[in-house]
């Protein structure tokens, strides 16, 4: 089998698992999480980054080899997301940006319209834009038009650990959208990440499920393996599922008598 690399934003990665930095009891565990998961892309909430901090900063714990993906968590409008992205670039965080625009604090569901607006502005400015959205075909198409580098549909609301609730919609995005599909949010267990990958998702982003596990390092390793297993299952082209056992040719057997 030829090497199966994950292409995103003009780069190639060996791993299809993206990890986060929020919710850890101690940021010092982050390097070990990266190592155990094999992940090469890590997202950081810009609102938590404090470059002036004298008492430690999440940035200090991000291994150098990781692709840094700042996110706009906290933004409630396209305008805020754009400001945060520009600030990230000005701070030297590179030109990758994960757009999160959320103005519903109860369910933390992303605002597709504002996200598309921010994506369009930032893509024109040369950012590699990864928008976090609902698993919605129309929103995804508008993101393609807006110049997104991938589409990141949610499996379930952020932090809910409810799994792949949007499975059918994600399946449609995988079929219809030519960009990489990265399932982001909601995945609570490695088996769910595996399932998304088996379906043909290009990658998964997992934060809460790893950060809030009793043993985050072991969980990171499990997710790394699950994403890999799911990907390999997808590539191997699993046989079609059958509900019933079937005779070899129950409807056309008569033809052989000819």
């Amino acid at each position, binding site marked *: 089998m030829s090497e199966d690399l994950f292409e995103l934003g003009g780069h190639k990665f060996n791993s299809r698992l993206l990890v986060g930095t*929020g*919710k*850890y*009891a*101690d*940021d010092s565990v982050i390097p070990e999480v990266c190592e155990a998961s094999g992940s090469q892309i890590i997202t950081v909430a810009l*609102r*938590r*980054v*404090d470059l002036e*901090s*004298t*008492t430690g900063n999440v940035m200090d714990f991000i291994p150098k080899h990781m692709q840094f993906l700042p996110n706009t968590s*906290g933004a*409630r409008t396209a305008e*805020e997301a754009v*400001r*945060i992205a*520009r*600030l990230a670039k*000005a701070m030297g965080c590179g030109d990758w940006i994960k757009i999160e625009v959320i*103005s*519903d*604090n*109860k369910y*933390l569901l992303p605002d597709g319209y504002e996200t598309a607006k921010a994506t369009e502005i930032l893509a024109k400015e040369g950012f590699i834009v990864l928008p976090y959205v609902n698993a919605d075909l129309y929103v995804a198409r508008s993101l393609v038009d807006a110049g997104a580098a991938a589409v990141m549909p949610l499996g379930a609301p952020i*932090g*809910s*650990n409810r799994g792949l609730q949007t499975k059918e919609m994600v399946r449609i995005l995988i079929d219809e959208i030519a960009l990489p599909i990265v399932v982001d949010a909601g995945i609570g267990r490695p088996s769910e990440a595996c399932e998304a990958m088996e379906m043909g998702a290009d990658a998964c982003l997992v934060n*809460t499920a790893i*950060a*809030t596990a009793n043993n985050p390092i072991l969980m990171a390793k499990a997710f790394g393996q699950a994403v890999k297993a799911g990907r390999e299952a997808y590539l191997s082209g699993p046989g079609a599922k059958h509900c019933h056992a079937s005779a070899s040719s129950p409807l056309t057997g008569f033809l052989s008598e000819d």
Partner: protein
Amino acid sequence: MSFYPICTEYGAMPLTEKFAAVTAEDVKRAINAESPDADDFLAMISPAAVPFIEEMAQKANKLTIQYFGKTIQMFTPLYLSNYCTNRCIYCGFNTKNNIKREHLELKQVEEEAKAIAATGMKQLLILTGDARIKASPEYLQDCVKILSKYFPSVSIEIYAMDVEEYAALVKVGVDGMTMFQETYNEELYPTLHPAGPKKDFRYRLDAPERSCKGGMRVVNIGALLGLDDWRKDSLLTGLHAAYLQKKYPNVDIAVSLPRMRPHAGSFQPTSIASDRDMVQNMLALRIFLPRLGITVSTRENPEFREQILPLGVTKMSAGVSTEVGGHSQKGEKVGQFEISDGRSAEEMCAALKKHGYQPVFKDWQCLDEHYGESV
């Protein structure tokens, strides 16, 4: 529409009897409800829920870690002025109390800011007594302009304002407001607030909502536990939070759980909220509103603050002085109330880490032009 009709409706109910009528079955159903409603919340703070506190704690712990991780946001208060025109009978700043009144000049505000910033604190809560003449909206705006240079997040805990006044503060960089209703018991309220602008129950009750309309990002409410039966005030606090959360989904709603503390006046609590009551209250709030911020101040003692870490708290103060100018000036001063946890920011962080929690200093940064970031 405002929260007032709901407050009135509940005020007219025989709440004591309602609490007493809750059964163990009601409590179990409430704890396991997919989306707990007002009746479920009432059940969880009722006496019948006491034997279920451990079960509630297990659920609250899971929900808190799920939605907030093992993190605690850190903030510290800065008292700008202790002049007050009110006569809240439970408060040390009461206009009748014979204490030295002080008010920080802008230069002093900057000195305080520097002293606090040097401790590593990034989220600041500014407080004043209720005296518009001494701490006018314009004065507050000037203070915020200075403080924004040192703190990415500045919140206010001041007198009730109009929507436009809140909006003006938001414009210069304020991102959060705290407003304690003190008690939701409209009948009791006037005896506790015999004179001054705070006497207007409804104006205060609607202030958090006005601040949402004014563009605040974080709105923190609460009752001062001990003024009335804690269960009644806690019920209304939770319902008020739920009301705001539903109506203003873009605002982070939080609740504080302050208990009465000794102070310079002579008023003593009518209803003592025990540690167990506090815990029950917090657990019920977490299960009722899983994404609610919950703030615990230094009114509580260090041991208690550490023990309740896994139960729902998301925000804690540290390095606190309740005196005007107490961070940069030393001397004999009178604070608003006595604090129970006098630990510095550094000591508090060490304690959090010891319990497997990460102190979060910065969680938001205002990027508007005034903050000086040319983005």
